[in-house]
């Protein structure tokens, strides 16, 4: 007679599961950011490595501290804090002083995540919350860009192309020489900027893996990038002497980092496909608007945060069509 081992596991159906887990998702995104990180370290030198390590360790540490304080199990190993740390680092200039990085980590984990109840509860992308808090509080440190390493630096200033353009327009009224950007250099990452935003190629490489693994949806980046292209392109048609061309817009100012890795954060983006389109379009339009008419040269972070705030609303009005229902009101 066959004797079953005791005790058997009792649980509700289903008893089969697709392979993904929270930890696997988080660590895969971390891995997908490896090319961009590597490029950042290559381009900006050991200083960038130090900032990255500090941000990651800081976020992991603060996550543990805050979880302890809230009497919750410590779940650093699920990779979500590490991912936030990495994203934070990639959004910082390589020359950031150590205290700025640690402060950023504390803000990301505290203000960005745990005040709302931890993973899954935060309405805003924690890394972006930290970046914006730092940007507003320490504008000088946050925009002191170092030039990429000398091996690339034939004539490239430390300023970001967008920043240079904004300054030129503000002082001279026209772009002038700041309008001549080398798109290839932008794509490769041979220009100033924060650690992770400079190389479009590295970012796209990593994102391709995530798209293929269906960890990030394609609709948010498509809508985001498309809307930015459209709006900046239209204005550029009108004022080519005052606005950078739309391709340069896409390749600079952290737009790809934002569209591919930050706006696609599951926790802070809408649940349904329709919602994700609206969200992406909103991000793109706001980014373009800030760049064209706002005070900041970039705008990606603000755009995403603003749209993050709209997610509950978007979710409410983009509910899936229920089977067997003709019309559906929002709850």
């Amino acid at each position, binding site marked *: 007679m066959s004797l079953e081992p*005791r*005790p*058997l*596991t*009792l*649980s*509700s159906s289903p008893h089969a599961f697709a392979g993904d887990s929270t930890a696997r998702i988080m660590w895969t995104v971390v891995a997908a950011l490896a090319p961009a990180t590597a490029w950042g370290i290559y381009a900006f030198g050991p200083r960038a490595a130090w900032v990255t390590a500090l941000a990651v360790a800081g976020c992991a540490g603060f996550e543990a501290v805050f979880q302890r304080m809230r009497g919750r199990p410590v779940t650093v190993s699920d990779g979500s804090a590490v991912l936030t740390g990495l994203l934070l680092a990639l959004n910082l200039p390589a020359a950031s002083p150590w205290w700025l990085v640690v402060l950023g980590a504390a803000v990301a984990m505290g203000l960005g995540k745990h005040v709302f109840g931890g993973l899954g509860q935060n309405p805003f992308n924690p890394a972006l919350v930290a970046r914006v808090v730092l940007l507003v509080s320490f504008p000088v440190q946050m925009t002191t860009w170092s030039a990429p390493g000398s091996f690339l630096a034939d004539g490239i200033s430390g300023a970001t192309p967008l920043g240079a353009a904004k300054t030129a327009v503000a002082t001279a009224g026209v772009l002038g020489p700041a309008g001549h950007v080398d798109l290839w250099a932008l794509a490769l990452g041979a220009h100033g900027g924060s650690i992770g935003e400079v190389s479009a190629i590295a970012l796209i490489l990593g994102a391709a893996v995530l798209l293929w693994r269906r960890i990030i949806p394609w609709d948010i980046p498509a809508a985001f990038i498309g809307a930015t292209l459209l709006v900046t392109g239209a204005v550029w048609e009108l004022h080519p002497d005052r606005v950078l061309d739309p391709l340069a817009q896409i390749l600079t100012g952290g737009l790809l980092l934002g569209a591919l890795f930050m706006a696609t954060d599951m926790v802070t983006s809408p649940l349904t496909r329709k919602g994700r389109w609206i969200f992406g379009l909103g991000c793109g339009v706001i980014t373009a608007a800030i760049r064209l008419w706002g005070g900041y040269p970039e705008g990606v972070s603000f755009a995403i945060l603003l749209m993050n705030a709209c997610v509950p609303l978007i979710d409410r009005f983009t509910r899936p069509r229920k089977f067997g229902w003709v019309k559906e009101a929002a709850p």
Partner: protein
Amino acid sequence: MIEAVLIVGGLGLVSALGLGLASLKFRVEVDPRVEALEGVLPGANCGACGYAGCSALAKALAEGAAEPTACTPGGAEVAGAIAGILGVEAGTTVRRIAVVHCRGGRGVALDKGVYVGVPDCRAAALVGGGPKLCSAGCLGLGTCERACPFGAIHLDGAGLPRVAPDRCTGCGACVDACPKRIIDLEPDGCRVHVRCRSTDRGKAVKAVCSEGCIGCGRCAKACPVDAIAMDRGLARIDPDACVSCGRCAAVCPTANIDDLVAGRCKALIDEPACIGCGKCARVCPVDAIAGERKAPHRVDADRCVGCGRCAPVCPAGAIRDGDPIPTSVETAA
């Protein structure tokens, strides 16, 4: 910068004005008694009254739709206050507290297997009736604890709920929350409880729980006031008939019955003080007191079960504690 301050300030001003106007325009007349009633209600919003929270009850009271005694948690005190505000008579309230009818905690009752799922008894009960082998037993996931608005019920080390009698208000939130229906509200006066709800045969109970009621019926035989009835394989104490003498607990072979009375004594009548009114004899459930009218009464110590009913009724204060009655089982905390 200045513009920003002005814009934000202006916005604030406009909305403040709007809100102020709205509150003037949409003000509703409130019965002043409602506010007073809300003041005396506990404010726990436990829902025991059947209304959605204390203010809803206050409204119902003012409209005369609810009785002054509707708030069970508030007890006689709140009922009196409500009656005062409404200018009516307060009815009588019997204080009831929650009693958990299961003692099959960890190590006593066996589990079916390892439960993985929603940590809530009601949800767990949907997985094959829950992880306990005994289908009547406590699932130990603390749904009652979370349901209690007064923090009066907590899981002990064995995962069994324990009621703190001084905190329990008898609101019944736990009673409704328990999917196994093993919590009941019982008159506070009854201090002896059968802690099992399994009507299975004795053998079946023994196979799954070492302290369950096996339906042997010894308690029913031992009860001097016939307060215990056997219902299929389960002893049930009628809390209104029970005199809390604890005799059942002493004979239960699985030590299932809780006896919460500490230090019972036989009654002793101080004969010189006795005025022979016979009130004690009339309340004695076991006819242990006898005596001529106007002559000193006596307690038959063999019969007396130490229920203590006689002492409070004696107008002369002539009844005091006699020999202590030993309890043969550990009294539960």
